[in-house]
């Protein structure tokens, strides 16, 4: 639980600020992170981080300033000095042309339903022995790499608007393994995600990679010529495409500023295929559930696309203030995007049985957007991608590039899996911010544009 001393220091400084008429937001972020990295079948790095960050935002009419401090909070003077720095920045700031919407913790929140002590205190030896077991089962002749990040995050939010507190505590993990053939150079991967230590099981990885190994061992791989293909997109690829479509098409700022691929549409218009529905649902346990936004707004289910129709756009506080809208509490910051499942069989190969030659691309690497206005994205296949004929895997494919639009790919989906899958989208660039999407385990779309492919693995 939140350190009692730090909590009382923050409340004290919040009260002092309020008494002085300062409008401030105090956000404490505490992470205890561990990451084991594997390279060349060895542990290449075993690292621990225990970091405390304090963000202070001061609003002075139309002027705002913020200061972030990373370090030990030994006494109230540390917090007062961060407040003073933010206050001074706000004093000197040039005024905005609109009134910022004050942050306010709507209702007191204290949530830790996705906190697991076993994962928070996971001994790195557990990770080491799991990797050892997997190497042994899949074969010592391969080259293994991977990483296993786990940790606990605490977020504590106070504002001078009232005395409410918002507190979140959670745990999360992301395991990955890459198996590379030392001579042939093909790569297979498997990932596991969850918020409990018990969500991980070594067999899930050995089973999935073991299933694909014979195909890769017994085939030289093939190059895919440019053209239009029917493609089975796996959960990883779906989360990349849908996540980026949401980021660029469903946030209020991009829409207001006519930068998004939805800019010429409005709520009520059909923007994608009739079988595509998407919500931001912080109550969905396949995501990392975060019940309030960083401005203090309580979050519930927020529909974005229903049966292909644009229902709502997400407005963060700054965008809402700028364009005279209401902040939705949902933004692209820590989303819990959930795409509806369909009626497809659990095995995508069964679904593709009558489809002839199709590509199975489980994930996309390095996606980017040549045209945000047109919704054009590009990215390439990497691991586990194969050519399928009449529902049978016939050969791995070399790295293959898709350059297409969200509207085309998500407008021509013929089969959607009935099984939801959680895809961990967290990165560890800045502070620990667990993010996961719940998407169908696969979908099949036709007429997908393949624009290039590598000549070998």
């Amino acid at each position, binding site marked *: 639980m939140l350190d009692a001393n730090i909590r009382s220091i923050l409340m004290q400084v919040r009260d002092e600020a309020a008494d002085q008429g300062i409008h401030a937001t105090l956000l404490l972020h505490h992470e205890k992170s561990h990451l084991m990295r594997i390279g*060349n079948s060895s542990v290449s790095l075993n690292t621990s981080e225990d970091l405390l960050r304090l963000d202070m935002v001061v609003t002075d009419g139309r002027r705002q300033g913020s200061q972030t401090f*990373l370090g030990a909070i030994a006494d109230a003077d540390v917090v007062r000095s961060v407040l003073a720095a933010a206050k001074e920045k*706000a004093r000197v700031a040039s005024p905005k042309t609109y009134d910022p919407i004050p942050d306010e913790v709507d209702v007191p929140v204290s949530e830790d339903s996705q906190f697991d002590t076993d994962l928070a205190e996971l001994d790195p030896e557990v990770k080491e022995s799991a990797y*050892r077991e997997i190497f042994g089962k899949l074969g010592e002749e391969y080259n293994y790499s991977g990483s296993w990040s786990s940790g606990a995050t605490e977020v504590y939010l106070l504002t001078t608007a009232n005395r409410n507190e918002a507190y979140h505590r959670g745990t999360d993990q992301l395991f990955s393994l890459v198996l590379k053939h030392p001579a042939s150079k093909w790569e297979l991967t498997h990932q596991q995600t969850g918020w409990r230590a018990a969500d991980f099981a070594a067999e899930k990885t050995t089973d999935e990679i073991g299933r694909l190994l014979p195909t890769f061992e017994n085939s030289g791989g093939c190059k895919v010529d440019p053209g239009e293909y029917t493609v089975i997109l796996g959960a990883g690829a779906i989360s990349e495409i849908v996540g980026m479509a949401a980021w660029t098409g469903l946030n209020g700022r991009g829409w207001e500023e006519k930068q998004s691929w939805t800019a010429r549409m409005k709520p009520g218009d059909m923007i994608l295929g009739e079988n595509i529905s998407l919500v931001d649902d912080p109550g969905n346990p396949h995501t990392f559930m975060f019940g309030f936004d960083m401005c203090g707004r309580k979050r519930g289910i927020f529909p974005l696309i229903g049966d292909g129709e644009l229902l709502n756009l997400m407005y963060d506080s700054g965008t809402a203030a700028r364009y005279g809208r209401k902040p939705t509490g949902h933004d692209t910051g820590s989303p819990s995007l959930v795409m509806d499942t369909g009626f497809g069989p659990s095995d995508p190969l069964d679904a593709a049985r009558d489809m002839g030659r199709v590509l199975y691309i489980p994930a996309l690497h390095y996606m980017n957007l040549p*045209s945000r206005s047109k919704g054009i994205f590009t990215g390439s296949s990497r691991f586990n991608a194969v050519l399928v004929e009449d529902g049978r895997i016939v050969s791995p494919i070399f790295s293959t*590039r898709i*350059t297409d639009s969200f509207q085309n790919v998500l407008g021509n989906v013929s089969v959607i899996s009935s099984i939801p899958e959680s895809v961990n989208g967290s990165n560890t660039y800045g502070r620990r911010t667990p993010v996961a999407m719940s998407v169908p385990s696969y979908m099949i779309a036709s007429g997908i544009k393949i624009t290039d492919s590598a000549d070998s693995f």
Partner: protein
Amino acid sequence: MTDAAEVKNDISQNISRISSGGAGYVDARYYMEDSSETLVLYDGDLEANDTTVQSGVGVRVLWDGAWGFAATSDPSGLRSCFDKAAQNARTASELVKAPLFMGKRDPVRGSYSTPVEVDPFTVSLQDKLTFMTRLDNELKDEFILKRIVYANFMKKSIHFQNSEGSEIQKDLSHVFGMMMAMALDCDGEMQRRSMNLYSTGDGTAGWEMMTNPELFSGHAGRIKSELVELIKAPQLEHGRRSVILLPGQGHLQVHETIGHPLELDRILGYELSYAGGSFVDLDSFGKLQYGSEKLSVSSYGGIENSPGSFGFDDDGTLELDYLLIDRGLLVNALTSRAMVNEANEKAGREVFRQSGGAARATSFYKAPIDRMTNVNILPGTDGTLEDIIASTEDGIVVDNPVSWSIGSNREHFHFGCEIAWEIKDGKRTRILRNPTYQGHTLEFYRSLSAVGDRSTWKVEQVNNCGKGEPNQVMQIGHGVPVVKFDDVITGERK
């Protein structure tokens, strides 16, 4: 942290304690200061006015061929931080097939300071905002829908010590600037022109870079006038033609398809689970014709005012000046001590003579990995941009990236740019919208047919290169001349 001398003394004692306990190598980086200020004017509104301050110590312990790392921002927690790093290394050493080793090195003592005329952290916020608002006003125009003026200032004071007796003090300062104007084109699609602060390679790296009209502040009028043409321009049609990259685009091409594939940790497979691998392997060095004879690429720490210059890396190695590609032939990589040792051992021969000084960590709480320094294409002998245009039959000149997507082994790529100028029979004819080009790395560099002279060479800055797990964002420089490639696939198929 409290008294810096006391902390350094504590670090020395802990390094000795952990070394004498059996560690093969120990180092610590003490960030006495690590500040970053970000200011963003968005349509004139100050949307970011933020400063981040942090300090702390990161400890790295090598135990039986495996790294353990731990960090603390609490001076009272130094001893337990060293213990944690050592414990992490011991756990890691239980699963080691290819032991890492640093080799023996004499103590290195030295210091490095980025040359700065005016420390941006001494310029008042008021003065910074007045300057940025002036730029924003220059970007204003009726047809312009969005304007952005961005500034980022970084300052780090780092004390490095290791178990070999090395002690290095680094005081780094970086300035990043960007301005952008956006407008809707004739099809209702948003177009943009932008300008990033660059350097000429000489001079200082303080606030004076921002206010220098050539390097940054004098370009608002140019990008506006290019944008007004761009929004009326026709689309680039699909087809094969020559592509001339201005440094604003060329630096990212170099970054993604020369820099990243030549990071030795990536070549050795240490990035497979995240950033990816490399089509280059240890056999490639001294044999692989990476590009045409016109291609010479260096890793050079001597560019005074570039974020890729830091004096000494986080292994305590002096940052060097050496060739990566010599007249088309691949000869070296971006290297650190442990990676060089592992590569040579694996190859059974000396592929690399010494570390190139590329081990870098982004903050005290991250462990060093192989990073780019300043990865540069050396100027050539094909004259100015106008000379290169004059010798081009059918091509485009492109500038500034909109989109970049690269294959996981860096073997193929796809780039979208802000603007293209069409070249027909040696003359610029018109501006074209939505230019894209794609290719395969080796085929592309082997088609390099012209390299501009020193007058075309600019040091572009990258302040957001992502790599590693835990992920790290790094600051890098690229000195690049104007370069021309032939027979490139451009535009998108209908």
